[in-house]
């Protein structure tokens, strides 16, 4: 147990003071942008679920009309995700060349998504597709809020490009390069982690929204708590993986993975068990206690989203456990 908290086992222990500070600030920035992105993701899912509902019900014309109105919301999500990628590429820099390339690409994407979004709204206004710049829905000032949001990300993109230029003269970023955590099967790894990240984004906003949305009346109290735990376990797990496990020195990872995966498995199994017990006490609970947390699932009257939310952390834990066992056998 002691080794989990031994500073010497972590990469940051070998960093200089300034590098430690920069690393810490970046980690905080990633967490903050992750939080914002999770709320944008939930709102985009709401928009998407409604459009999916129109298509499934045989009205693709309504879905297209809605999509065209809500395009700036999708672009806002892309801006948020690209900022997350940009920060992550900086935090987990492997070497300068790769990092510069990645930063440049991400900054250009931000400028493009933000620019297209603003242009789109103005064209929509001129063409009469939006009755005013504060037409309303999903917020009181939509689509003005999407313009403001895009401007923020354009500013980030410009800042990064200017920063890259300055890097050629002076290097103010001193965090040392890290070992690439992906060694083999990169496409499989990327698909898996992207899926996990989306689940974690959904889980974080779902879990936080749930505190306000869930009806904790009567028999729904237990269910509400179980669902909030089920939602929050994914982002907590992702956070632990990124900022704890991936921060362990490579030579120490082998011995620490197995106990870590067992902790993760214990938490996941407890969450699944709690969810199942809570559901069996009230099969009406999900639709009555705050079904807003299951947008796509409910639109299709299918319970899949709930099951994905509950079982993804379990799958992640089992994968980690198998890897831990293999590594131990190799030792």
């Amino acid at each position, binding site marked *: 147990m002691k080794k989990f908290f031994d500073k010497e086992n972590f990469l940051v222990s070998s960093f200089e003071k300034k590098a430690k500070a920069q690393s810490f600030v970046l980690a905080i920035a990633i967490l903050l942008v992750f939080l914002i992105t999770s709320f944008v993701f939930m709102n985009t899912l709401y928009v998407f679920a409604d459009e999916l509902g129109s298509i499934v019900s045989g009205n693709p014309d309504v879905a297209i009309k809605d999509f065209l109105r809500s395009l700036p919301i999708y672009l806002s999500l892309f801006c948020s995700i690209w900022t997350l990628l940009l920060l992550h590429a900086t935090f987990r820099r492997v070497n300068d060349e790769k990092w510069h390339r990645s930063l440049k690409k991400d900054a250009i994407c931000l400028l493009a998504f933000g620019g297209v979004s603003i242009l789109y709204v103005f064209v929509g206004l001129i063409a009469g597709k939006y009755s005013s710049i504060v037409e309303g829905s999903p917020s009181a000032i939509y689509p003005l809020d999407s313009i403001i949001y895009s401007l923020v990300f354009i500013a980030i993109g410009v800042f990064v490009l200017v920063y890259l230029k300055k890097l050629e003269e002076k290097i103010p970023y001193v965090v040392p390069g890290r070992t690439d955590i992906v060694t083999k099967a990169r496409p499989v790894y990327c698909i898996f982690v992207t899926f996990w990240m989306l689940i974690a984004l959904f889980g974080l906003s779902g879990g936080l929204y749930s505190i*306000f949305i869930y*009806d904790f009346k009567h028999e729904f109290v237990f269910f509400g708590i179980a669902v909030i735990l089920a939602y929050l376990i994914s982002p907590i797990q992702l956070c632990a993986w990124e900022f704890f496990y991936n921060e362990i020195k490579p030579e120490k990872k082998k011995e620490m993975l197995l106990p870590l995966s067992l902790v993760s498995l214990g938490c996941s199994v407890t969450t699944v068990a709690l969810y199942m017990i809570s559901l069996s006490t009230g099969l009406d609970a999900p*639709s009555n206690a705050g079904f807003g947390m299951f947008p796509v699932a409910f639109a299709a009257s299918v319970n899949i989203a709930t099951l994905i939310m509950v079982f993804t952390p379990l799958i992640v834990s089992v994968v980690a456990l198998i890897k831990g066992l293999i590594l131990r056998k190799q030792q």
Partner: protein
Amino acid sequence: MKKSALIVMASVLSFSLSACGGVKNWENNLNDYVYSMNFHNNFNVLQLTDIHWNNNSSTTDSKQYLEKLFNEVDKHLKATQGNNAKIDLIELTGDQFMLSNSYHVKTFLQFFEEQAVKHGFMYAAIWGNHDRHGLYNPNWLGEQHKKAEHCIYIEEEDKLYGRSNFVINLNQGGSTKWQLFNLDSGASFSETAISPFRDYDYLRQDQVQWYIKENKAADFAPAIAYYHIPQQDNLAAWNRIHKENVNLKHKFFKLEGFADNGNEEYASDFIEVAGQQSLRAAFQGHAHNVDWTVELESGVVLGLGVKTGVELYYAHIDPADNDPALQEGLASVGINEKFDLIGASLVTLVDDNHFDLEHVYFNERTSGDFVKWVKW
């Protein structure tokens, strides 16, 4: 450390106790579920259903549609019933919202309050499955309805199934002439804890018993029930007509399933039981491509309202389409041009024993709005 643990435990305990307290016994408090209005001949009840404001909606466009619709209904009533005629009550039969947030709810209620003052109506709100489906607490939604001055909405802390069940008694000369029941037909449920699919909800036994007692308390006044999800009776009637050639009066369109849960185990006996008492009609929403209405052998008129507005999905009616169900619907309404199956339905309580039903198909068009009134 121990002290803080005690404080946390005490807080959790008091929260749990407060959450469990104050549950009302509906059987001993029947009056708490009653809202009274004055009855007069030609009392007009307009049913709007499945408005579906959501994150994609342009509330500006939707408000414009609803405003035009109210004006059209007002014009129609004055033309057919005289200058004093107006919409007396609007029944919102569920799914006013889906995938929406607090902005939509506040804007919607503010709009209805303005229109209520302008046209002189009250409006009653019924829960649909999707009204629970938003970024707000369902309790908060209920509270907003309670606060709205012209909204009729009763939600008690009780064990009666559903969030809100209430009855509007239409009184005249000291007696109740009509009862309008507003029932919450729920949302959906899993048959087991691990079911990947969910069934649509149904009217439960205690709701049927509540109806019986409330109706008895009003000396078995004729009643009309409004709820969101059609029960199995609609499909059974359709099958009796189309598969067993039973002769029942029926009209309008059925272009998709009724979307009841389709499961005998979860069938409701509401129509059968209430029909034996004094139920005269039951109107629902939920299936947007359906406004099919039938008069059962018991004399109960059973039908779906016309979907209101252009959100989510609705039927595009094209006379060139050879679909038999569509052609049957077209023949029943006598329309021979393209139109969308959106609008509203109007029940007029002619006197203390009779009612009329009309569907209005109302489409906004740049070349002039499409309006067709079709009598039942």
